[in-house]
């Protein structure tokens, strides 16, 4: 497991961020000389890592594991998320207040896969691919190696909001090769996850659960979803100017790479 503990994250939060940071190995710092007027409560908590959390890490590693940036540790309720604009991890704000899940703490670690995107034009939410990480609780801002197991199909307000389910490397769940394997070795996990994620947002005015699920899909679907979203991210940021120029006849030029035999020379 590759961990990056946030030693000195930038924080615009004061007391709240400090309170949240206790026990996680990082500390939020008040802005120098910042004072608040009576009745004003600082809310924003922003965490800065060694690299940009959205773009600074590869999707895959050479050993085939998938990197995940942990936003919400298992057992906690603060809704931290990676900002694709800043590459920082920010505490979500809702109606002018920090957002905490009004339910039991997350049943697993929650995060996203760097350099992936669910494009809005393809029905996505424009954010990186969300991931549920099975394993011991991991601090916010950690970048961990995982193995895909399947996909939890979720529908939020009529929109598809699927979550990839992965096992944390070197955790007990890492011995699972598939959803069947998970069900056999760790009975109840899929039921717990489905119950929690369809329940934590509560019910609508009609009394129906806001979130619904059609169940789990297998590992093949997880591999496809990760690959498609990684490819969509790269295609969305690479422009013609980033590509090597062709020669005057429109053919590629010979490229010499230091680690290759370069037989075309």
């Amino acid at each position, binding site marked *: 497991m590759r961990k990056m503990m946030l030693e000195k994250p930038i924080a615009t939060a004061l007391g709240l961020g400090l309170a949240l940071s206790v026990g996680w190995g990082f500390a939020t710092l008040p802005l120098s000389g910042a004072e608040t007027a009576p009745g004003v409560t600082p809310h924003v908590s922003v965490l800065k890592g060694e690299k940009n959390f959205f773009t600074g890490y*590869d999707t895959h590693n050479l050993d085939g594991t998938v990197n995940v940036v942990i936003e919400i540790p298992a057992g906690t309720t603060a809704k931290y998320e990676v900002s694709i604009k800043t590459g920082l991890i920010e505490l979500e704000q809702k109606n002018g207040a920090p957002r905490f899940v009004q339910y039991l703490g997350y049943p697993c670690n929650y995060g996203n896969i760097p350099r992936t995107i669910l494009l809005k034009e393809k029905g996505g939410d424009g954010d990186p691919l969300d991931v549920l990480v099975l394993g011991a609780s991991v601090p916010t801002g950690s970048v961990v190696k995982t193995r895909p197991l399947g996909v939890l199909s979720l529908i939020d307000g009529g929109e598809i909001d699927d979550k990839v389910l992965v096992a944390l490397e070197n955790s007990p769940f890492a011995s699972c090769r598939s*959803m069947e394997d998970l069900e056999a070795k760790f009975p109840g996990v899929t039921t717990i996850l489905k119950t929690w994620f369809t329940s934590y947002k509560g019910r609508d005015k009609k009394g129906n659960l806001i979130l619904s699920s059609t169940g789990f899909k297998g590992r093949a679907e997880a591999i496809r979803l990760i690959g498609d979203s990684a490819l969509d991210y790269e295609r969305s940021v690479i422009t013609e100017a980033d590509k090597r120029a062709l020669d005057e006849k429109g053919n590629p030029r*010979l490229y010499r790479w230091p680690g290759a035999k370069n037989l075309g020379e």
Partner: protein
Amino acid sequence: MRTSLSTFLHRAALACAFLPLAGQDAELLDKQFGTLQQPAYIKHYEATKSGKVLLNPYLQVATKEYPGLLNPKHSPYNWVIDAEGRVGIIQEAAHPYGRTYDKGFYRPEDKSKRKPGTTENYGHVSALAGGMGRISGEILYDKGTNSFTLNNKSGRYSKNNEDRTPEQMVNAAKLIREVVDPGSATWGPVYYLLEYSPENVREESLKRPDLAYDDAKTKSRPHLVVMPAAPAVPKAEKPVAKAEEPAVKPAAEPKTVEAAPKVEPVKGKKAKKPKAANNDDPS
């Protein structure tokens, strides 16, 4: 203190005794799957301007502990044996730094002319980020027999090397069948393509009585069938609770594949002879 020093020396001696094993493992892997070699070339679009070779977004690294998984819809795949004897598997997708050439183009790396409409795809090097590899090739789905065939077609890691023999292809195929789950399909024959073999092996193989061609009349694509298809293994259905799509079973391929009979074609469809390679693009 004396005891702890003695323990330390004992452990150090024990550790030193195991050191040659690492070398032996590498030697064994060299023999089984070919020596570690740099890729023959990196195409202009495969590295960023800072020289980084992108990993394939669908990368799987198959081992006994964590088997790979195939889906006929995503064929063709490329495979490569890495330094540690693992099997890297990737899908052929359009590379984000690549282009599609409506009029075709000349590729300088292998001095070849590409057909109009050719798209620059992720190649074998995207399984290793341009790193060194052993024997390599393709995994192709054959609809007629519902099976995946294997070959040694790789312009980067198989061609232009000292080894990469038919025996190494057999060893690689045995490993792949052991650590990769073909899903609802079976394993088809294993081909050794002479166009991707070392020159000395090619010369010898051209004299073999079992030499075959994709088209005997034109003598196109000379090859050897180095392993027959594996027998179909019935898989017990075991659906995941409330799952939309059944998850895969762990790979459990038979080891006695050499003596296996060929898989019967799907009834009602005229089975075509599977081609030894997918296309003419030596990725």
